[in-house]
């Protein structure tokens, strides 16, 4: 080859390159009209805001220390966890090798898939890494993989206005009045509906990772305990769930006993042939407030993850609501993935909120494609307000409840910060016979929508109620930990008209009671001792050594009369040290919640105790959710130290 040939070859390569580039060149007008902010957003969103927010948070941290009152002493904004004091490892080592999109043409599209791929890779490596690194004492290095994931994909920083001040006041959480101790003689029956919601834990995590202790009313202990899967044995063949009771010493009061009641739903066979398919309608809030990295983009990614799991048996539709509501994707079989993904891609935020109209449209779509025998569900994704159209919350709830009775349930997925209406979403899901989760990161989306797709999607028993009768011969007083808004009247237990919670395939549900033996003193809220009755008249059974009788009612997902399971439980007097890992871990989460809430019933429960119990309950598998919990506890402890300083 002569140099001249070479020159021509080079020239030709450059020319080809230019042709390729020019095909992708934006119009002059486009460049000119775009505001700089718009372009910034066109880049991977979290990158654009990451550095600025890191700086902003630093500044605000200092400001907050100097100026704000005690309760707001911690910096309110998001803080990249990689730069935090705890568990910080350079993310570079944790991240997978760079993606290599083959051309610029494909790059834009590749970005989203590469991002997901990255998550997948990190998650897969997580387990191996955790095992390799081990979880050593106070260090949290082992959680680094998870942290990298959280850093990379978790809720990116909220805009500056949210860093502190007003917007917080628009987040609403219903005040929780904790269950008091009740005397077994006066209230031998304790009745509640199970709750498989997990949102509270994600909300607490979001606060703590954002450098702030959560408000007490955001800490719902049962939702935190139920965030974690427990290893209860699967049920016998013909029952929908197994019931597992464990009793051991109560960590936060050595004189008390802690009773753990664990249910585990049957694993529905994921054999394609036996699947009945799902009819899902996504109702997505695209109002202006959703135009933040941790909102609509996260919704899209979450639904992209879910879309991968669907097949031809499933139908999926997308309805959006904002200034006006509309159908973005008519019911489409789950195997037409490109259509679904293209529809997701088109979603853009903008406009006011008209939730009510969107809700009706969503239910209309669900009804049109009703999958008899399968799952019919509206999945609401929003960051908060849901108050137009049907303005009266009661009317809205009644509407949702009526639809649930017709077989269409409602799952609520909460996103974002600032204007978050926790209470509304929880009661919507509650009335809609569905569940409620708060999604603060792509990994959370994966957990809720993909890992639990069987659970989230397939209800195996509904209206599950638990009633415990305590034996006053062995129980002086007791307290149900959490489940404050799930407590039922004792008459409701046998009343089939009374709604209660659902349990899904593979779900585990755990409830904890703190039991005080007779003769020990305990503060009982608001009740004077009885004047005319001293010792209750006991039946001969009470002398049998049974601590309690557990009764459980449930209905088939299709409805019909409820069935009853009943079993008597004897306390074998186990000490805490003899309890199972699951028991200790559940106790750790409860202690964490009690300490965070600064509950009057927390006894000796501290963050330190939560950490100690959590370590004991971590188990040999180093479950990444549990490891993350440990990190959260450490972080909360350091926030508390800062606050007390």
């Amino acid at each position: 080859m002569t140099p001249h040939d070479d020159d021509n070859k080079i020239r030709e390569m450059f020319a080809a390159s230019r042709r390729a580039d020019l095909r992708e060149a934006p119009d002059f007008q486009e460049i000119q009209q775009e505001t700089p902010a718009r372009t910034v957003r066109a880049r991977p969103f979290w990158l654009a805001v990451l550095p600025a927010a890191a700086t902003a948070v630093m500044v605000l941290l200092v400001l907050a220390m100097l100026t704000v009152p005690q309760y707001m002493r911690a910096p309110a904004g998001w803080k990249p966890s990689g730069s935090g004091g705890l568990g910080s490892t350079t993310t570079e080592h944790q991240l997978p090798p760079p993606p290599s999109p083959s051309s610029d043409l494909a790059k834009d599209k590749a970005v989203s898939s590469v991002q997901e791929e990255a998550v997948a890779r990190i998650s897969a490596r997580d387990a191996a890494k955790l095992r390799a690194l081990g979880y050593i004492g106070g260090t949290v290095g082992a959680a680094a993989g998870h942290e990298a994931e959280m850093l990379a994909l978790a809720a990116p920083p909220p805009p500056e206005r949210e860093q502190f001040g007003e917007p917080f006041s628009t987040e609403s959480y219903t005040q929780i009045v904790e269950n008091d101790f009740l005397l077994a003689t006066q209230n031998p029956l304790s009745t509640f509906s199970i709750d498989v919601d997990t949102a509270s834990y994600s909300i607490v995590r979001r606060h703590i990772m954002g450098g702030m202790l959560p408000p007490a009313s955001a800490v719902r202990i049962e939702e935190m305990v139920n965030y974690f899967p427990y290893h209860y044995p699967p049920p016998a063949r013909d029952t929908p769930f197994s019931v597992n009771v464990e009793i051991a010493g109560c960590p936060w009061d050595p004189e008390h006993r802690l009773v753990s009641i664990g249910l585990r739903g049957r694993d529905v066979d994921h054999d394609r042939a036996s699947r009945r398919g799902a009819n899902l309608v996504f109702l997505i809030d695209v109002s202006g407030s959703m135009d933040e990295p941790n909102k609509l983009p996260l919704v899209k990614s979450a639904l992209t993850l879910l879309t991968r799991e669907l097949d031809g048996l499933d139908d999926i539709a997308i309805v959006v609501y904002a200034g006006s509501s509309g159908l973005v994707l008519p019911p489409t079989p789950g195997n037409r993935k490109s259509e679904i993904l293209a529809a997701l891609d088109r979603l853009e935020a903008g406009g006011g909120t008209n939730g009510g109209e969107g809700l009706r449209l969503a239910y209309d779509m669900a009804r049109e494609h009703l999958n008899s025998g399968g799952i019919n569900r509206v999945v609401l994704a929003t960051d908060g307000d849901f108050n137009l159209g049907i303005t009266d919350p009661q009317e809205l709830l009644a509407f949702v409840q009526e639809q649930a009775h017709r077989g269409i349930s409602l799952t609520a997925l909460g996103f974002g910060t600032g204007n978050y209406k926790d209470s509304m979403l929880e009661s919507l899901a509650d009335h809609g016979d569905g569940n409620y989760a708060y999604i603060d990161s792509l990994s959370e989306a994966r957990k809720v929508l993909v890992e639990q797709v069987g659970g989230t999607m397939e209800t195996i028993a509904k209206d599950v109620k638990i009633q415990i009768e305590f034996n006053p011969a062995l129980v002086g007083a007791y307290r149900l930990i959490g489940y404050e808004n799930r407590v039922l009247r004792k008459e409701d237990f046998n009343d089939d008209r009374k709604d209660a919670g659902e349990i899904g395939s593979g779900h585990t549900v755990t409830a904890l009671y703190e039991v005080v033996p007779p003769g020990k003193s305990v503060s009982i809220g608001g009740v004077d001792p009885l004047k005319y009755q001293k010792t209750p008249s006991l039946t001969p059974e009470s002398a049998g050594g049974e601590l309690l009788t557990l009764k459980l009612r449930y209905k088939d997902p299709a409805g019909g009369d409820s069935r009853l399971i009943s079993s008597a439980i004897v306390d074998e007097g186990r000490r805490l040290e003899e309890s199972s890992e699951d028991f200790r871990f559940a106790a750790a989460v409860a202690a964490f919640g009690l300490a965070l809430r600064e509950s009057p019933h927390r006894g000796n429960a501290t963050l330190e105790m939560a950490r100690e119990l959590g370590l004991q309950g971590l188990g040999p598998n180093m479950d990444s959710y549990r490891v993350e919990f440990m990190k959260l506890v450490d972080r909360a402890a350091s926030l508390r130290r800062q606050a007390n300083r």
Partner: protein
Amino acid sequence: MMSTQAQSALEQHHPSCFTWALACCRWNRDEAQEVLQIAYLRILEGRASLNGTEISRPWIFGVIRRTALEHKRRRVVRTLALERWWRRQPETDLSPSPSPDTGDLEARHRLRGLLARLSTRQRELLHLVFYQDMTIEQASEVLGISLGTARVHYERAKTRLRRLLTQEPR
């Protein structure tokens, strides 16, 4: 009127300006758009000094190049490791493009892989001469270097690229 004159010049040269910005930003399209936007704004608002010369393509290219450099500097300062990882560009990836639109895209891909192995100055010079069809003199104006220096770098760059081309297994 400066701005209308500038406006029409920009409009006329826009496609090549974009490709030049792309080259200055290591083919990161988003970044190139941002840089281009800032550069245009500068020119249209008369903030880029003309220093007595006329509005010409080399001059506009110079503004774009400086803008890209500043942009890069700013970015480097605040860059986190994460961002570096994310932004790593495909130029180091020499595997063939799976795109169905083979011809041009593949050529571009290959060329980018080769150019990545040259120095910045060499890459810029080759781009200006071969891609933008500029004379070496115009290119030296864009880069703000003397004609002689430009010539030397240009020759070296060409030699190096030729060698890479023959070395590279086809």
